[in-house]
């Protein structure tokens, strides 16, 4: 027993360089992997709930209105009220629907959206596991959600869901191609450092060869000293641009949300789903958004690396950047306290005022804890990763509030006729830029041989 405790504590050692999935001892590995799984999925659920509230409030403020204000201070308890309502609703299955397929479709979508988080790297050792095929696994499992969408539309035995499911799945499959090409160009970039010549020099330990592992991709950015979005300017930017558009279309969000918009197809493939089943689709949609944002952050924006790791290097700049997590939480706490002071001074608002003050106090406490050096060293990576993903979530909400909807044929045209050729050209140009010295040598050889 004491030995098991010792094994478990050995993972907390500062020098551990692998994720729990690859840690040597089986008991410590199982324990820490379970802890990581619980933390990641708990955090994901909290993030989805927070996204719900944030989306309604930010959209409202963009449309010059206030959003939910009644259920708890500034509507903070609105998502919980929504969740309780959905859980208590009547479970309706259409008459002629195929009950088994109708029941299993939301589970497949949720499974696909949640399993993806097994390889998402929150830090150099903060992933549940680091598979050799990390990015391939993420793309593959997220493509399983198309199956759930198709089955949901078919099993509803009704016209709107069927058309919505066909359109939605056609859109998701089309933009997966563009996503894959953009991802491929980044995978090529990971092979650029080392004594080998990229693809032609595969040495032991991965020197000179690329990698598909998510942690490896961020480490390649760390070694090359530049985020891949700025690599071979503007090629990295174009790749990021293609992926950013494709990921919005992949998750069926505005402006590509024709298959599920209320004014178009009465909610598309999840029309006939109500109550808890609908909340599963909703949960899966937000999780998929966070998952593809994680892919974008890992591949182009440097994952857990703090901004300017090479330009502003050195221990003083490290200290400056390490206080930013704590300052962010203190800033949010200050906003909460400011709004507490602005609450109406009516006796009926006492509970709300105290609730908001308590929320602000919790945020402030977290901020103060983040100032402790031991905590900020281990947790700083997770903070930077989450901050970048949060930026992407804000972009998603911003797109929804700003852009008009694409018509379906325009949508397919963008996916096949614009993004796919761009992705192919990007791939060829990235490969040419990466091998430019060898390419130039070959051209010289041919030129002198003529």
């Amino acid at each position: 027993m004491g030995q098991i405790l010792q094994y478990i504590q050995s993972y907390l050692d500062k020098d551990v360089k692998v994720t729990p999935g690859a840690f040597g001892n089986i008991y410590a590995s199982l324990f820490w992997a379970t802890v990581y799984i619980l933390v990641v999925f708990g955090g994901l659920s909290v993030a989805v709930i927070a996204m719900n509230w944030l989306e309604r409030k930010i959209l409202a403020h963009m449309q010059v209105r206030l959003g939910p204000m009644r259920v708890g201070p500034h509507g903070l308890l609105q998502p919980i009220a929504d969740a309780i309502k959905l859980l208590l609703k009547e479970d309706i299955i259409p008459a002629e629907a195929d009950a088994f397929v109708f029941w299993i479709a939301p589970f497949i979508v949720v499974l696909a959206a949640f399993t993806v988080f097994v390889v998402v790297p929150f830090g150099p050792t903060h992933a549940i596991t680091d598979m050799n095929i990390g990015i391939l696994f993420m793309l593959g499992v997220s493509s399983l959600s198309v199956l759930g969408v198709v089955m949901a539309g078919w099993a509803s035995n009704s016209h709107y869901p069927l058309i919505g499911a066909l359109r939605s799945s056609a859109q998701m499959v089309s933009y997966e191609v563009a996503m894959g090409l953009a991802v491929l160009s980044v995978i090529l970039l990971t092979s650029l450092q080392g004594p080998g010549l990229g693809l032609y020099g595969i040495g032991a330990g991965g020197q000179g060869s690329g990698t598909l592992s998510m942690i490896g991709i961020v480490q390649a950015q760390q070694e090359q000293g530049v985020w891949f979005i700025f690599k071979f300017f503007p090629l990295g930017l174009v790749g990021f641009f293609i992926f950013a558009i494709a990921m919005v279309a992949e998750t069926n969000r505005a402006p590509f949300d024709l298959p599920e918009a209320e004014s178009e197809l009465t909610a598309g493939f999840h029309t006939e789903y109500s109550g808890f089943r609908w909340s599963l689709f909703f949960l899966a949609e937000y999780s998929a958004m966070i998952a593809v944002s994680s892919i974008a952050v890992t591949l182009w924006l440097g994952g857990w690396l703090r901004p300017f790791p090479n330009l502003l290097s050195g221990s003083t700049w490290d200290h400056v950047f390490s206080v930013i997590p704590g300052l962010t939480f203190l800033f949010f706490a200050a906003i909460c306290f400011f709004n507490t002071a602005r609450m109406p001074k009516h006796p009926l608002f006492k509970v709300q005022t105290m609730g908001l003050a308590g929320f602000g106090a919790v945020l402030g406490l977290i901020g103060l804890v983040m100032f402790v050096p031991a905590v900020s060293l281990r947790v700083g990576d997770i903070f930077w990763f989450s901050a970048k993903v949060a930026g992407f979530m804000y972009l998603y909400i911003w797109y929804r509030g700003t852009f008009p909807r694409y018509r379906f044929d325009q949508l397919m045209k963008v996916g096949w006729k614009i993004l796919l050729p761009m992705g192919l050209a990007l791939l060829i140009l990235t490969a040419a830029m990466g091998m430019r010295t060898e390419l130039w040598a070959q051209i010289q050889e041919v030129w002198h041989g003529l």
Partner: protein
Amino acid sequence: MNPPVATPFFFYLLAGTMIIGGILVITRKNAVHSALALITTLLAQAALYLMLYAPFVAGVQIILYAGGIMVLFLFVIMLISIERSMKERQFNKQWLVGGAAALALGGLFISVYLTTTKGKALFPEGSVTYGETENTQKIAALLFDRGAGQYMFAFEIASLLLLVAIIGAVVMAKKRI
């Protein structure tokens, strides 16, 4: 190189899932249920590939087979109306002969195995696990490496095959050629 402790448990679990999925594929009346059973079989097979230290093939199986080919099957099943076909007879008139022929094929497999190995093990040197940390890179070496790669030509032919398949599928499914 001891295999992990739970290998037999997972092998039998996945093998059972695959066999049950296979039986469900060939016996269901509803084509969508058959497709779901096939998806289960394919995912269990991807897990078996992971057990065989082949993560890249497992990833390709999930992306292409379960996430691509089965989506195509489900699309087509949805586009053609299957209510009429569900009311018809499911097995054709030669089911007895067909089943006997398939079982004879299985017997042929067993007899070939027994006569060629004559009781010895299949791979007498046993198995050496080189781990899966470099699996993708090693497959890439076999495919693309200038010195050791043998499958570059097959790779190019496969891309030509896919081009032909794209054109063929588009032409076959058009209303007016």
